[in-house]
């Protein structure tokens, strides 16, 4: 290389170094703020490993066109935002209508997070925000979810939604957050007070039964032991907390 070129390169490096230092200084401020946010996270306490909460849904009682469980869920959990594109809205529970094209037989059922014993969403979450409580309830920690949506790719039930827009009028007991992924919590805020999930309480046909799968004396455990029940995509052997009858 010739002499003038070397000088030109040195000048360029000098200018670039000054510019880089300036940008670096700016970047420090948000970094410090982020560290404070991450340290503000505290672990949840109180769930018992002796309990495993589960749900049994009798699809023979579930009426097509009835969405009482969906409305109750939305009210309880403050899911009230409206989006132009319905595909972008959060649905923690939804009604699915099934039809067997060969026999014409039809079913209607609520689909929600299945609270797997081996949840793929928990396996794939890079930050551990997707977690399973000791009592089997699968939750998302709003403070550590980075919104990568890997859990949505991994969930076999399309049970998770990304919050696509800023939220207002939230239920203080059910914090939600723009850019975070969320799903059914079994109304953990109610369960921890000894209440049933809102969807179960709202079902006019009593098609949804909630209880402790680990307690052999509980109604849900006895019915699962004595009646035919189905796990959706049982081939994946995820040991679901939600079981269905009639499909």
């Amino acid at each position, binding site marked *: 290389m010739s002499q003038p070129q070397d000088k030109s*390169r040195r000048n*360029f*490096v000098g200018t*670039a170094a000054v510019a880089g230092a300036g940008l670096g200084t700016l970047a420090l401020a*948000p*970094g410090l703020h*982020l*560290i404070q*946010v*991450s340290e503000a996270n505290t672990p949840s306490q109180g769930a018992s490993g002796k309990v495993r909460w589960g749900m049994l849904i009798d699809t023979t009682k579930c009426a097509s066109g009835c*969405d009482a469980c*969906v409305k109750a869920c939305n009210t309880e959990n403050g899911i009230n935002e409206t*989006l132009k594109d*319905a*595909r*972008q*809205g*959060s*649905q923690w529970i*939804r*009604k*699915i*209508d*099934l*039809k067997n*094209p*060969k026999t014409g037989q039809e079913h209607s059922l609520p*689909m929600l997070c299945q609270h797997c014993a081996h949840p*793929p969403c928990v*396996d*794939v*979450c*890079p*930050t*551990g925000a997707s977690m399973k409580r000791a009592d089997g309830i699968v939750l998302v920690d709003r*403070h*550590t*979810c*980075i*919104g*990568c*949506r*890997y859990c*949505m*790719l*991994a969930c*076999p039930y*399309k049970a*998770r939604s*990304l*919050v696509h*827009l*800023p939220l207002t009028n939230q239920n203080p007991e059910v914090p939600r957050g*723009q*850019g*975070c*992924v969320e799903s059914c919590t079994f109304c953990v805020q109610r369960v921890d007070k000894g209440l049933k999930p809102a969807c179960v309480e709202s079902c006019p046909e009593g098609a949804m039964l909630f209880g402790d799968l680990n307690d052999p004396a509980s109604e849900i455990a006895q019915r699962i032991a004595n009646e035919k029940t189905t796990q959706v*995509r049982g081939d*994946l052997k995820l040991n679901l907390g939600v079981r269905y009858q009639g*499909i």
Partner: protein
Amino acid sequence: MQTALTNRLEGPSFYALAGIGALISLLGLGAALYMETSGHHVTGMNNQVFWGLPHVFAIFLIVAASGVLNVASIGTVFGKKAYKSRGPLSGLLAITMLAAGLFVIMLDLGRADRLVIAMTHVNWTSVFGWNMVLYPVFFGLVGLYVWMLMDRKMYAYSKPVGVAAFIWRLVMTTGTGSIFGFVVARQAYHSAVIAPMFIIMSFAWGLAAFLLFQSAMYKWHGAELHESIRKRLNGLLGVFIAAVFYFVLVYHLTNIYYAKQTDFEQFILLSGGIFPQLFWGGFVVLGTIVPLLLLFVPSMQRSAGAGTAAALLTIVGGLCFLYVFIIGGQAYPLDMFPGMEVKSTFFDGHIDNYVPSMPEILLSVGGFGVAFLLTLIAVRVLPFMPQDDIAKLQASGALHD
């Protein structure tokens, strides 16, 4: 004899190119800021197709970043002399393309501001979690490798560092493939062939990116690549393109073999609208057949621009493949109730018609802008231009081995 080259990449021409790169990067950054503040409802993504165009571009850049390092590895690890002068540029592109890929994927997060959390809360069962180690170590190793290659005093250490970087890049791309390979829920993924398929794709896409940037650098320096080196690099690209096609064939044939996956294969290869169009037209014809013709038909391969055109088409084909693989894999509905007709308010049983929005397009292309800008600045600052001592190479028989 090695002749001194004149770098034309100075003054106004450098600043003009850097300005273009900076503008594309800033548009991407602005688009990401808009998405971050407004929420992802301003994108074409939704709760069925939640990984959109930015993931296509980001994963392309991340996979190609690993593969572009091959050029250096062939020189240092496998001792092919014609590749040795290309090592520093190869390492540089590996760093800048990975940085660009991470720029896109991080800014597409729902909470891009939580990058520190991603680095401080790691779940080791997650392939994304592994990336918190895979990427920084890759940056470190390749940075060290480039230093060893460029500093004569350190050159003796370049082989062990090169071997480590080579192994690490294989591990890293195995991880990228496993992001999909471990997903049991979906018909498009959950296949052991995906990780090796991504590795061979990284070979082809990385070499294509290298050839494109190298040809630009030769133009800037008013130099011409020696024919025997050009033929060698073009031949290697052809082999990689053919190998990618083989792996894609195996991936689809495996899926077709499983009866429960045939509906999905029918969709992705024949009836799925944009997806079969991009697969056959973009990946197979433009990204595989045409480049192979350009590289191996004697009348075409003699043209100096054939390799560059083939490299460009390989990149186009790669982006088409990833669009079909990532978007098509989500657009096809989850098969929760086999044999049943399914409908719901959440679009169960429906094929999603994702259309990328302008912010997504700007962020995605912004990634290419970042890679270009970083590389451009680096080649302006340090001598990355590959210079061949042809007489020496010929005398040692390196151009014939």
